[in-house]
């Protein structure tokens, strides 16, 4: 009898809970609105060169700090650049930062959590104390410190945010693994002689994925705010490249003369973060029927 003939993870049975969850998600209006707005911003980021009416870097001294008009729907900034075009291009930095940082956190955090929870022992104890240490430093302060020492640019900001978010995923994954690793299906997989790698990847990982997915969605919202915060402080995307955070930073100097400079980038961050939060909350309810 081989391990394959007694494989306890049936592909069909594995698909059904996800399909059910998707159906539950589709029934939640707030989550659907959230997804629609997220898709809108992703499309905006991808199509920025086509959608933006002007070059986001082109200055125009005759149109400095012009209020919204038919030529410039969102107005212009202190160098006469079109705010709408900069908001559209700025979506790229925000979405890229959100997705890349969370991917880094997932790529490092989840495997560490899987191994730590599954094997336990001394290494697990040490790793958990390291995670405690990282969690003891407030998220943004850790990201600021990392970005400061690595050097201020968008890539380093993404690395800093990703590293700062990693402990959350390690701890979450470890906790989930501890909860399922003594379940009958894992014992059965072990009893038929599956190697650890197969047990971890085929039997444990699919069963701990749901809360990780929810956390990842909410973490994207956190990462977008963090990138905007770092750029606002001058530690993220560097001018003149457009980013919502750095646009807000500039806007603070012209609040009484050009309030629209502060309005649109802030509204963009708020809408995108709110949408990821709505989607994350919807996913949580859809994947955990007890809460639904």
């Amino acid at each position, binding site marked *: 009898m081989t391990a394959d003939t007694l494989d306890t993870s049936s592909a069909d049975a594995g698909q059904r809970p996800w399909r059910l969850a998707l159906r539950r998600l589709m029934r939640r209006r707030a989550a659907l609105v959230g997804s629609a707005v997220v898709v809108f911003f992703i499309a905006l980021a991808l199509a920025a060169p086509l959608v933006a009416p002007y070059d986001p870097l082109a200055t125009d001294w005759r149109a400095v700090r012009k209020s919204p008009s038919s030529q410039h729907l969102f107005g212009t900034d202190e160098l006469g650049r079109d705010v709408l075009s900069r908001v559209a291009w700025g979506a790229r930095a925000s979405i890229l930062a959100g997705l890349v940082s969370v991917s880094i956190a997932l790529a490092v955090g989840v495997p560490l959590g899987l191994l730590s929870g599954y094997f336990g022992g001394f290494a697990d104890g040490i790793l958990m104390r390291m995670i405690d*240490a990282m969690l003891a430093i407030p998220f943004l302060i850790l990201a600021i410190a990392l970005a400061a*020492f690595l050097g201020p640019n968008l890539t380093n900001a993404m690395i800093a945010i990703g590293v700062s978010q990693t402990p959350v995923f390690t701890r979450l994954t470890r906790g989930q693994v501890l909860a399922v690793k003594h379940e009958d299906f894992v014992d059965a997989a072990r009893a038929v002689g599956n190697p650890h790698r197969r047990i971890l990847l085929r039997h444990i990982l699919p069963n701990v994925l749901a809360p990780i997915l929810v956390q990842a969605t909410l973490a994207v919202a956190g990462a977008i*705010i963090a990138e905007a915060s770092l750029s606002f402080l001058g530690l993220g995307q560097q001018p003149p490249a457009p980013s919502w955070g750095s646009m*807000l930073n500039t806007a603070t100097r012209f*609040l009484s003369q050009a309030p629209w400079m502060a309005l649109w980038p802030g509204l963009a961050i*708020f809408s995108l973060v709110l949408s990821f939060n709505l989607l994350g909350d919807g996913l949580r309810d859809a994947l955990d029927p007890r809460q639904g």
Partner: protein
Amino acid sequence: MTTFLLRRLALVLPTLFFVSVLIFGLQQLLPGDPALALAGEDRDPGVVAFLRQKYHLDEPLPVRYLLWVEGVLAGDLGESIRIKRPVRDLVLEKLPVTGELATLAIVIALSIGLPMGIVAAVKNGSAIDHAATMAALWGRSIPNFWLGILLILLFSVEWGLLPASGFVSPAESLTRNLATLIMPAFVLGNAIAAVMMRHTRSAMLEVLNSDYIRTARAKGLRESRVVLHHALRNALVPVITLGALEFGELLSGAVLTEQVFTIPGFGKLIVDAVFNRDYAVVQGVVLCTALAFILLNLVADIAYVLVNPRLRG
């Protein structure tokens, strides 16, 4: 209880060790020669030589770490390269400003979050519950610094009611002190109010469904007494301890809020230090923040056990 205390304290020590390694390690992220990087843009050879000697940069890494820890334990957090003052003095100087801002923010967060959470739980599923949940979602989605900017636009630029920036010490004038802090404290308290509301709501929902509440109602007590006297007292315990975890959020938020409102506190100290490449100050601020967080969590954990007789065992 003693066993719990000892076990909890034993957990703190390795955490402190790793925090120190992490913060010391930040220096290693500097590209190239740390002495050159630490010396700032001038790169005065005298300063470079001084730094090399001061931070024992010629010694092996573990030795440098031990020497650094020895200094920290003796209260020496290094010296600011720009301001030429001990980091410890700078931190102690800025701490009361951020402390006052944070305290005001917590007062605001509690006075919004608690009543909202209670009402949402009591009226579970009603329009008020949905409105409170939406408000909490708004609270955690709106970026601190943008809310600050919007408030400045409204209350300072448009209506001229409050100063847009700056800080007046309470010793100088309490009214002006509050006028400078009310907007930043609201901005900071807003996000925490959202978390408090969610914690209070779920804790209250759990307590309101318990047997002793049913008994209290069966005795014929007024609903307000059942909710405020019987339910809230028990629901508050997890709310307060979970609230301690929000300390990190508070400090992260303070960095941005202090920047928007130009308040000379802890957050502004770290941001200015980052731009001045004053790395010792960055390390000092991060270390103090982490120590405060660890201490607060320890106190919250102990308080949780103290007020919860079932856990005392």
